[in-house]
């Protein structure tokens, strides 16, 4: 694809790696926030090509991973109802709840369907007027415009059998939570490019001003990721802290105004529990009260679901960048992509899944014949 392959050019990657090596004089810990970037880093071996002084810490930017288990359990309860068609992005289906996952609901007779877009779920609702169609609206700021649009479209088309189960989370409150943590040793951040495509850079400017850490808005191709790292290192070595945009072909300072207005119309700020991390104030969105008719949590009485996490899973520490996936006792043994204990081993953006897929198995497991 045009303007994709060019940003995976090995020659450009080597040049930027040379610049990073020339600039680096001491140890730096840099967190890439987005799970998409984590996968790019491991897939292309960027973690192994960087100077050894630079350590990449994987952040909480995996929407499937941070969706709280209570909400998974509510999804399972709703999806099991005979009148419901439950639509979801594919990687939610294997995320373990307290007792089973969406695949097991489907195996038990539930109508669970994978869709590519919330707008596809809208079409399912139009085609099945006798069914209640529920879309599992998880995601960060990148996905919020699509979900907001689906609700606006449902209202415009007069659909009364469509609702969404919302678990939206936002990046800046999570960064604040990490920066305020006494355990945090992060020197600089790569901010998720497409989140900023929607939201712009305003909230990151506030974080930089308050905490004095460089934040570089970064894309997802290997050369983009390397340039983001290069610009963080350049700031750290120079002792500066600014918001820098290393993804200008996709990110404008004000974001996408149409998308932001749609989000503001449909959603309202709320506290959110992040799976394995805990509740972060004002860290998510719920449906605004005037869109209550589309709120699956209100339409289906599932608020009394009591959830139980697997006691062995240390996903919370992985999501905060405190524990490397391969250092978890369960990694690759009792927890694998086929038998996941936690969501980071399932999702296409999960750090555990990336380590497993790209063979960062850790010394002990890697040493086996």
């Amino acid at each position, binding site marked *: 694809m045009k*303007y994709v392959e060019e940003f995976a050019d090995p020659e*450009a990657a*080597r*040049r930027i790696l040379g610049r990073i090596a020339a600039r680096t004089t001491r140890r730096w810990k840099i967190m890439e926030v987005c799970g998409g970037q984590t996968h790019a880093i491991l897939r292309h071996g960027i973690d192994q090509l960087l100077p050894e002084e630079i350590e990449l810490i994987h952040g909480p930017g995996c929407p499937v991973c941070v969706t709280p288990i209570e909400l998974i359990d509510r999804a399972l309860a709703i999806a099991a109802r005979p009148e419901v068609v439950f639509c979801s992005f594919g990687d939610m289906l294997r995320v373990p709840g307290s007792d089973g996952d969406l695949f097991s609901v489907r195996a038990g007779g539930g109508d669970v369907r994978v869709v590519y*877009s919330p707008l596809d779920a809208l079409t399912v609702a139009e085609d099945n007027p006798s069914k209640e169609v529920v879309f599992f609206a998880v995601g960060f700021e990148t996905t919020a415009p*699509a979900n907001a649009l689906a609700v606006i*479209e449902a209202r415009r088309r007069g659909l009364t059998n469509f609702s969404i189960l919302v678990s939206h989370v936002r990046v800046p409150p999570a960064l604040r939570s990490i920066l305020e943590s006494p355990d945090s040793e992060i020197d600089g951040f790569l901010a998720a490019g497409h989140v900023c495509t929607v939201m712009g850079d305003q909230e990151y400017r506030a974080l930089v001003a308050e905490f004095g850490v460089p934040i570089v808005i970064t894309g997802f191709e290997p050369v983009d990721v390397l340039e983001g790292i290069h610009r963080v290192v350049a700031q750290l070595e120079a002792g500066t802290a600014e918001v820098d945009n290393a993804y200008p072909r996709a990110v404008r300072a004000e974001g996408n105004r149409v998308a932001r207005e749609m989000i503001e119309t449909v959603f309202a700020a709320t506290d959110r529990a992040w799976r394995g991390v805990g509740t972060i104030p004002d860290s998510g969105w719920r449906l605004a009260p005037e869109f209550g008719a589309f709120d699956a949590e209100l339409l289906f009485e599932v608020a009394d679901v009591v959830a139980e996490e697997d006691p062995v899973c240390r996903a919370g520490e992985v999501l905060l960048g405190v524990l490397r996936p391969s250092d978890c006792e369960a990694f690759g043994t009792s927890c694998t992509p086929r038998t996941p204990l936690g969501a980071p081993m399932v999702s296409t953006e999960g750090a555990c899944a990336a380590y497993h897929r790209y063979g960062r198995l850790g010394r002990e497991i890697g040493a086996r014949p």
Partner: protein
Amino acid sequence: MECFTDRGTAMGRVAFGSITKDVCLALVPEAVVGDHVIVHAGVAIAVLDVDTARETLELFAQIDFGGEQ
């Protein structure tokens, strides 16, 4: 990319390499046929700034192999 309307919603037929998909263009009213768009969950969230993309690539090409520019 080509543009059309589906049940009142602005849509476009977008080529992703060798496959094409219909995506919603409601959030990028400035998009015209021939543009490159960034698509998330079936919805275009931005029109790629092609001039800026070219400038970035040129800057990468100017880096001396030794490291510093």
